[in-house]
């Protein structure tokens, strides 16, 4: 049996034991999410327009993460809306910053990796870089949106008479926790993802000035910041959406 398969089976067992029904659903959301990513790679390699694939897969991936990961429908609906709006906003920012940074494609080691591979694949790598950045950010945004919405609705459950104004105030304090939570996950995730690259810079004696202008480092640092910006935008937006829907519900009554 391959190691990966064995690990996945252990994970499935653990998630079922610890998580119960929610755990099983989460397991499938992770699995589907991975397949969607592979599907994106396939579609782009077949020459389907990259912007269209990206725009279609943003809501698909958000829905997989949010609707399968949470069991409260109100939380899910609100988080999905907040996360989707934030992803579109951050997507625009990414488009602008990636254009300015010109950091697409493969890095300095390319020659070695590319033996036997085409260097002229005929698809736009600057656009692929934008897609990669958006997808890397998406997970953090979805997580923050779910944490914000469930935190606020929990508050409302315990204190049904809370006014929208008070709710927005609590939103700020819940937001701080959510922010703290997201930050380490993003930062260390990226450290873990690019450790070999940092070792490479260090061993080959890159100077600080070179590193901060180097394609792959710039790309990575930018993705960390896009993710943080995404989480930062999610905090107020999720709060506003929840208090809006509260006002609407009250008007109905």
């Amino acid at each position, binding site marked *: 049996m391959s190691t990966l398969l064995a690990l996945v089976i*252990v994970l499935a067992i653990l998630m079922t034991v610890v998580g119960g029904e929610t755990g099983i659903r*989460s397991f499938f959301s992770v699995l589907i999410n991975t397949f969607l990513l592979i599907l994106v*790679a396939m579609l782009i390699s077949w020459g389907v327009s990259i912007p269209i694939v990206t725009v279609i897969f943003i809501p698909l991936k958000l829905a997989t993460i949010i609707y399968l990961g949470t069991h409260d429908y109100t939380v899910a609906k609100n988080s999905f809306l907040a996360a989707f709006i934030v992803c579109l906003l951050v997507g625009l920012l990414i488009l602008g910053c990636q254009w300015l940074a010109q950091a697409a*494609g493969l890095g300095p080691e390319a020659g070695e990796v590319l033996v036997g591979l085409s260097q002229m694949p005929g698809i736009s790598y600057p656009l692929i870089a934008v897609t990669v950045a958006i997808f890397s950010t*998406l997970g953090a945004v979805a997580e923050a949106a779910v944490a914000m919405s469930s935190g606020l609705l929990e508050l409302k459950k315990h204190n049904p008479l809370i006014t929208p104004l008070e709710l927005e105030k609590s939103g700020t304090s819940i*937001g701080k*926790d959510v922010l703290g*939570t997201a930050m380490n996950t993003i930062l260390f995730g990226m450290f*873990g993802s690019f450790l070999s690259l940092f070792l490479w810079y260090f061993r080959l004696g890159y100077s600080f000035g070179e590193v901060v202008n180097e394609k792959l480092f710039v790309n990575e640092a930018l993705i960390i910041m896009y993710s943080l910006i995404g989480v*930062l935008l999610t905090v107020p937006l999720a709060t506003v959406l929840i208090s809006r829907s509260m006002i609407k519900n009250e008007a109905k009554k």
Partner: protein
Amino acid sequence: MILKQKRFWWALGVLLLGSILTAVTYFATDIYQKDEVALVTDHQIEDRLIENNRDVYNNYDQTREQILHLQILSGKQKGKTYTVKNVYYPSQLVTEKYRPRQRVFVSLKKGSLALVNPKRDWVLVLTLTITLALMVLVAGKHSLLLILSMALSWLIFYGVIVLDVKLNGTQIILVFGLADIIFSFVSLLIVQGWNRKMLATWVATLLGVFVSFGLAFLIMQLTGQSEMKYETGDYATQDPRGIFLAQTLLGVLGAVMDEATDIVSSLYEIVQQKPHITAKELMKSGRTMGQEIMGPLINVLVLIFMAEALPMTILYLRDNNTLGSAFGFTLSLGATQSTISAISIVLTVIFATGCSLWFLKVQKSGEKK
């Protein structure tokens, strides 16, 4: 949204300062050690088609050539002008298309000039400015702590890399295991201060990381590490298996730490509010919380670890490789790393809840006295 006036002005201040720094970085010329800075003086770059290409995989691309006029802005040859040809392919996988009026790095050797990189550092400063201004706006004073902890993380990260290179990568698992212990201690100390809650979180974090790492290691040994293509890891300057294990240890730490913080802090609140809660009830609360958190957290890491490999995967598929071999060469290491991390995240639910039981014990022994 109610914005506190003061916060707004601080954010504006950060934005202003950041814009100035961005401009300074953009125009900086003499601070770089190795290469010289040059300006593309053309307002419109001459760009001509050399040939249309079709490679063996039936990919259509072009070879194009730009003629750039450059003015050197730094170093001994300041003010000199050069004309240089830049060949690029529009897909820009390994080549670069330059833009009018752009600042670039060039290396000058014996009168000849070679293009190195576009100048990119100012974009980092610009994005950092936006991030920090938003952070001040949303989190207020709290953002100081967040920034401090983030800066320290980068610093320790740098230190760990120096140490690893000094040991020549021989003790890589030990070095990064130790790094995990220090990272989590410092980070939790800054955010929570020195108290019982912080200690419980710290212990839960370490258990979550190391127990699952041990478990994963065991599984890898039992299955003989079959189909583990360590050599496909990028930029391997030392033993690729060691690098993979170190990356896994480091990559999961943040998520586990954040998850443990969430669960332990909430359970601590519950014990404070309901001192007579039973151990069983507390464990149930911990489990419910864990169930909610683990799915989204795992997805965050999966996306970070796998999206990074997307450009390479697309290239492999583009070159008529089968899905299986493309996956094996580009995604399988990321998928393995994601799975090990996911196991850590699930196990942390148990450890964080277990460590919180300690509060209950302390509470009870306090009452007896």
